[in-house]
């Protein structure tokens, strides 16, 4: 009936209980894989590695007589030398040779024997022949079902039963939008028995703005989208406009042919639009470097090689990368073909060392997002409200803030003393000289520095009182410009990309100054040259004797280079900064302190002469500006209007009570800007003097040989008549009707999204080493239908999800599971764990936390510690994305595809669930089940907070426990709870209530996770108990599984 497909599929074949039937022998399906795996390496397409001048991949060579010997004589086993050598017991004769470590199995030998006996019929590789629309097998079924059922029938299997409605709506919602339905949507769908209900649901979901997000996810993997440059220092880049473009393209149902053309050659289209330029970022998503010392030509070679590889795997289903160093061993792709494709991309004006300091590597443009959204009026309205809220003094907030400030001022300077430390050492990574210190607490950082951190190792004086903080005094240096504190900015060039220097136009410019961008402190029993990233003292408050308006002392609490402390230029004499630790340090516990001063604005903005002290008692400085201090000092009734304004302004900027409003405002202003302002994005272009492309010997950039021009693969149909020899021509070739690969590869990739596995199980490899399709006719039918529909993606998706094959139940009998464990025959509904992003999104949605805004810049939700700084070049580079700073407000709750993707340290809760690191093109993610995943969904603050918020929704839903449990279960799983399940939940609830009733302290701890507000009307112990139930539900296997 069905012949085992290939060595590595024998197991599958065995499970399918099929037996060989001679009549069905198909070269492409049955023979080529065996020859490819075992023979083509030495007897195939690549002439350099070819042995004995024999090719077994083409009949002419295989059948030819050489010195009286014929490798394959059709119909004549005895006369076929290849066959005799396969049987040989002489290791020198045996094929494949023992040292290849290849070995033919008995079933494989049988197949080859049959094939030769039957006349050794060769055929062109299936995927290199353009697809023809096959006849749909007879019957009443739609095409998809007809082909699938035909195969099932051949295997003696019947289609599975239909999934129930709850399963269906969950499956479809996850597949088309990446979000599960609400309990109410699930119930409504379940009870809607009208015949068109499912079709209506499909249409509703296809029209959702989240459709584009769901479809984009796979394409972002393929296109290796990320927010950092990847190599080496892995600094930040700006590419989210391209991500917006992809989402909008799917939502607009842009024809796939245009989707590819604009991404490959949008810049070359006549009358190109800004959107089409943004689209070309597809082939700029590759990793880049500005690592000092690397060679630009080598880097550029790597970039273009990555572009070819990505094009091959994501669009053509060809492992083109295999032909960089030599002709492809298995597929008819020459090294020349490879470099002709390479040449299409080698004409960009990109440079081999580029992309530092948060500035995109060129070429890039400044453009506005293509995202269309109706949220702008609402955002503007809310911004206005928040401005009004923050502008209008709120008596209660002001009173509370004043009270707090007064108590701080009452404490100000109480028991204060500053004690000089003894400096033991000063170091910086990139300099060997110019660092001086005396026997006391004075440090001289002469001549500025590279981008740089300075670590000062100190010994503490003998103290009895607890150490409450640290003071840094910066002295003016007469030799520096204007007798200032540092060299910049009047002289010297600020580092590339550094933020604006601390210069106020209204002030005298000719005075050297500095910007202290961050301050880190480690206290220890012994001296350390360097701070310990794992033991940084938490700093509660920073004050200074003076600061320029945009450089307040608190600026150095944020480790990034963008913010920092810089004194007003008008300040005279020494200036000082005082940091108060969150927890006073007992002088018995520590003897030493290491202080890291980061002057991240670069060479000219380093303070030269510093003095370090530890502080006991309460800081005698304030973080309030003098005008605010004056206003506070004045009796409330006699304050001038200016004083009142000063007070409220300070309160609005600092009050804890208004924190949420400030965060919301900042986030919304950023959102509005993202939707309306231009931003950087990388694009493709053609250099004014494009580089020549050469075939590189062994793929080595340093060994150019023959010069080549842009061109396509000789073994595939030629470029269409009149197509230009540039990327636009390449795009035309890729999307022409006679290209045998593009539509098949696309259809297969979409299929994989809905069934977990493609019709071709190797979606990035349609070559000789790829898998034979499980349903070749269906694949071709879909490919032709796709092209003839005008490459209509939603049409394709509709065809698939409307099929009964898609709508089968995923339940399977043990017998079927054993027979077809991977469901390749599609005798049941697809079931697989959902991708990482959807797991987090599902939890956020259950918690009612999800902020469903589409598109925009990436965000940094909760991540434990600063995982970036542990591996990055922080302090030694102007590159961005070196230290992690968590966002707040709505940015904690955006969909996971917007989480900032740092390639060298990707988000750990996504990586645990098989998300790729986005360094290279990924077509199929893994699908593992691991304990680390359990730790994420049980303990990650993001999920713990989601459980807390979900519990709140449950409690508010109804006063009745049973109804709450029913609703919660439905919300989590989309289906009705069963009595046995309800029983488990009830007893769990009773137990958790009991637990928390007795322990108020524990309740407070449990409810403390996450920044979203808690509804205070819910009794805390009750909330805590329900939170455990919510966590239980969110951890159900069913919740992370798409059934």
């Amino acid at each position: 009936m069905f012949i085992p497909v290939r060595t590595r599929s024998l197991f599958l074949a065995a499970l399918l209980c099929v037996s060989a039937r001679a009549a069905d022998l198909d070269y492409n399906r049955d023979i080529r894989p065996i020859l490819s795996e075992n023979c083509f390496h030495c007897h195939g397409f690549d002439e350099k590695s070819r042995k004995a001048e024999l090719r077994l991949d083409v009949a002419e060579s295989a059948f030819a007589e050489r010195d009286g010997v014929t490798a394959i004589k059709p119909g004549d086993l005895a006369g076929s030398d290849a066959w005799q050598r396969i049987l040989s017991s002489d290791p020198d004769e045996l094929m494949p040779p023992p040292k290849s470590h290849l070995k033919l199995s008995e079933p494989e030998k049988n197949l080859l024997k049959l094939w030769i006996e039957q006349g050794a019929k060769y055929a062109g590789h299936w995927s290199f022949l353009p697809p023809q629309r096959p006849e749909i097998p007879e019957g009443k079924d739609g095409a998809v079902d007809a082909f699938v059922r035909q195969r099932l029938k051949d295997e003696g299997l019947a289609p599975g039963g239909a999934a129930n409605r709850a399963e269906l709506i969950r499956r479809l919602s996850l597949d088309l939008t990446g979000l599960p339905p609400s309990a109410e949507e699930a119930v409504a769908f379940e009870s809607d028995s009208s015949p068109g209900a499912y079709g209506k649901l499909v249409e509703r979901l296809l029209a959702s703005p989240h459709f584009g997000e769901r479809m984009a996810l796979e394409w972002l993997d393929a296109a290796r989208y990320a927010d950092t440059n990847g190599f080496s220092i892995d600094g930040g880049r700006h590419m989210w406009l391209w991500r917006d473009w992809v989402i909008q393209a799917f939502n607009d149902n842009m024809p796939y042919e245009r989707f590819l053309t604009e991404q490959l050659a949008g810049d070359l289209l006549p009358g190109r639009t800004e959107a089409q330029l943004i689209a070309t970022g597809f082939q700029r998503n590759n990793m880049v470097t500005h690592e000092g010392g690397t060679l630009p030509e080598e880097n550029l070679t790597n970039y273009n090689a990555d572009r070819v590889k990505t094009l091959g795997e994501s669009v053509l289903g060809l492992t083109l990368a295999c032909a960089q160093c030599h002709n492809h061993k298995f597929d008819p792709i020459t090294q020349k073909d490879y470099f002709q494709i390479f040449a299409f991309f080698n004409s960009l004006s990109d440079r081999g060392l580029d992309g530092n300091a948060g500035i995109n590597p060129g070429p890039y443009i400044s453009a506005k997002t293509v995202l269309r959204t109706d949220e702008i009026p609402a955002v503007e309205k809310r911004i206005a409200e928040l401005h009004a809220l923050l502008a209008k003094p709120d008596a209660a907030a002001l009173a509370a803030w004043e009270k707090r400030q007064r108590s701080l001022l009452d404490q100000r300077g109480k028991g204060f003393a500053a004690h000089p430390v003894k400096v033991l050492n000063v170091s910086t990574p990139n300099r060997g000289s110019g660092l001086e210190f005396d026997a006391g607490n004075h440090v001289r950082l002469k001549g500025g520095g590279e981008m740089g951190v300075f670590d000062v190792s100190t010994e503490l004086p003998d103290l009895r009182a607890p150490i409450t903080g640290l003071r840094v005094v910066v002295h003016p240096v007469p030799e520096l410009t204007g007798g200032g504190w540092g060299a910049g900015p009047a002289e010297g060039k600020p580092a590339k990309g550094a933020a604006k220097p601390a210069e106020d136009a209204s002030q005298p410019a000719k005075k050297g100054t500095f910007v202290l961008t961050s301050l880190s402190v480690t206290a220890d029993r012994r001296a350390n040259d360097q701070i310990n990233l794992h033991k940084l003292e938490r700093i509660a408050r920073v004050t200074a004797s003076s600061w320029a308006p945009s450089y307040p002392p608190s600026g150095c609490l944020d480790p990034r280079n963008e913010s920092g402390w810089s004194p007003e230029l008008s300040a005279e004499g020494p200036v000082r900064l005082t940091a108060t630790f969150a927890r006073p340090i007992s002088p018995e516990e520590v003897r030493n302190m290491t202080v890291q001063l980061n002057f991240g604005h670069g060479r000219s903005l380093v303070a030269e002469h510093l003095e370090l002290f530890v502080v006991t008692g309460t800081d005698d400085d304030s973080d309030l500006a003098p005008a605010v201090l004056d206003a506070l000092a004045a009796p409330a009734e006699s304050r001038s209007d200016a004083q009142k304004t000063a007070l409220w302004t300070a309160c609005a900027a600092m009050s804890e009570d208004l924190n949420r409003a400030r965060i919301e405002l900042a986030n919304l202003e950023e959102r509005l800007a993202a939707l309306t302002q231009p931003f950087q994005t990388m694009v493709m272009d053609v250099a004014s003097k494009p580089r020549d492309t050469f075939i590189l010997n062994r793929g080595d950039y340093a060994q150019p040989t023959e010069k080549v021009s842009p061109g396509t693969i000789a073994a595939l149909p030629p470029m269409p008549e009149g197509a230009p020899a540039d990327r636009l021509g390449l795009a035309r070739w890729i999307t022409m009707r006679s290209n045998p690969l593009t539509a098949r590869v696309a259809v297969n990739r979409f299929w994989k999204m809905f069934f977990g596995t493609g019709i071709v199980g190797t979606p990035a490899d349609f070559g000789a080493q790829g898998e034979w399709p499980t349903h070749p006719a269906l694949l071709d039918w879909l490919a032709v239908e796709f092209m003839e529909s005008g490459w209509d993606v939603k049409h394709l998706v509709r065809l698939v999800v409307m099929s009964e094959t898609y709508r089968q139940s995923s339940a399977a009998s043990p017998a079927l599971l054993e027979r077809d464990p991977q469901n390749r025959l599609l005798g049941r509904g697809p079931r697989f764990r959902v991708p990482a992003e959807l797991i987090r999104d599902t939890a956020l949605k259950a918690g009612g936390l999800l902020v469903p805004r589409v598109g925009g810049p990436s965000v940094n939700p909760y991540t434990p510690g600063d995982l970036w700084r542990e591996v990055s070049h922080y302090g030694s580079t102007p590159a961005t994305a070196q230290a992690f700073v968590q966002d707040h407000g709505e940015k904690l709750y955006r969909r996971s595809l917007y989480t900032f993707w740092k390639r060298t340290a990707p988000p750990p809760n996504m990586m645990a669930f098989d998300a790729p690191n986005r360094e290279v093109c990924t077509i199929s993610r893994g699908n593992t089940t691991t304990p680390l995943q359990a730790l994420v969904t049980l303990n990650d603050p993001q999920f713990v907070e989601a459980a807390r918020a979900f519990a709140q929704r449950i409690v508010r839903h109804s006063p009745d426990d049973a109804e709450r449990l029913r609703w919660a279960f439905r919300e989590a799983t989309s289906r009705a709870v069963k009595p046995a399940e309800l029983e488990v939940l009830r007893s769990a609830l009773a137990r958790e209530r009991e637990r928390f009733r007795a322990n108020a302290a524990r309740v407070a701890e449990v409810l403390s996770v996450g920044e979203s507000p808690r509804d205070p009307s819910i009794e805390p112990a009750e909330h805590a108990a329900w939170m455990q139930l919510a966590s239980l539900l969110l951890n159900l296997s069913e919740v992370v599984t798409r059934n």
Partner: protein
Amino acid sequence: MNPIIDRLAHLTRRTFLGDVSRGIGGLALGSLLQPDLLRAAQSEGGDGLPRLGLPHFAPKAKRVLCLFQSGGLSHVDLFDDKPMLHQHAGKELPPSVKGSQRLTGMTSGQTAYPVVPPLEPGKRCGKQGTWISDLLPGIQSIADELCIIKSMHTEAINHDPGITFMNTGNQLPGYASMGSWVSYGLGTENQNLPAFIAMVSQGTGKNPGQPVFSRLWGSGFLPSSHQGVGLRPGRSPVLFLENPPGVDREQRRALLDDLARLNQIRAEEMSDPETLTRIKAYEMAFRMQTSVPDLTDISGESAATLEAYGPEVRKPGSYASNCLLARRLLERDVRFVQLFHRGWDQHIAITRQLPNQCRDIDQPTAALVKDLRQRGLLDDTLVVFATEFGRTVFSQGQLGSPGMGRDHHGRSFTLWMAGGGIRPGMDYGATDDFCYNIVENPVHIRDLHATILHCLGIDHARFTHKFRGLNTRLTGVEEAHVVKGILS
């Protein structure tokens, strides 16, 4: 690639992180419960199933410890002194030696390439009389255990490609790390800890050092369950290990029991083996919540042991502390333990930086090797003290200035191995009089990888994973040779 077979193969290799998602039928749960049965199944043959069949031959080592010195450790200063360097000190490196090999963009524009002898004197150590710098007194004291390979070479001359090459067998991203290959091939011997653990520490010579990347311990194209799990200082040594605030172990146990009950009901209804696997994964997670803190709790270590590792051992996250944890991991049969110590990139101020870097690692490294020896673990633990490349014999920057350093040098560098499978007390390979070019027994990174696998009983040529049509190997597509001359 055939996912079913791959999965079955991983399953039979009992990966701790259980790569057993889809389509294994009832086998999934069974395998986790009855590893012995699967071990038996693994050794069976005759059914046409491809299998890794590992080990290929009797291994000498069961585990690997890789002490990776990130940034490019100076072989010239620390391991490869030559009389000529002193005779030629300050003079131009002869062009015949320097040849036409490429230099990095950092020194290719220099007008002079003066020879700089080792910073500090050293002494002949061990029975083989190998020269080791006085900056490394601890390592001097374990010379008898070491096989020092002085003829390592690599094509990479910059950090990202260099460190990626050494750790994944390729200069470009997208490949699987050494540790993930070993996890994939041999699985775990400890059901409560991951098979591959990675730890990062910061160097005090140069801080920040060159960046390191998760790809260096990533799984590349191998299933992600083989990626190295990071161990960090603090209350959650493995990310998200700790229960949320206010949730204790007893409560978590009760919740997991409820969860298992609910999952079981559904799994039976749907004949869903993946859910059964997930139940097991939750149980492993629960066990990790005690096995990991038990691992990182060093309160039971004797004062003598702590003292041996040096004062930094009490500093969480330090190289010394990671060394002690490495021993505790190896004791627990963790298959592959890798330390990354940053800061070895001495372009600048080598006279200040290098002694600090050496101080970071010298005493703890020596203590770790001695500790392994003393506990009988060194016999079947392969220790690899590695770096991505060496440093130039000529100065980068002005000779004699405090800012002077050395540039990257891929053409020759030094690393050492010890323990299971390796002949102790020997030098292997040699560079020329200027420790610039290799004159004897060159060892490429691929050869090193082949040798590491060999010690584990694996033939690198037969240890493959099918990806994108290719039988990929740690040693890549080019020839690689086991360094037979260093095997015990």
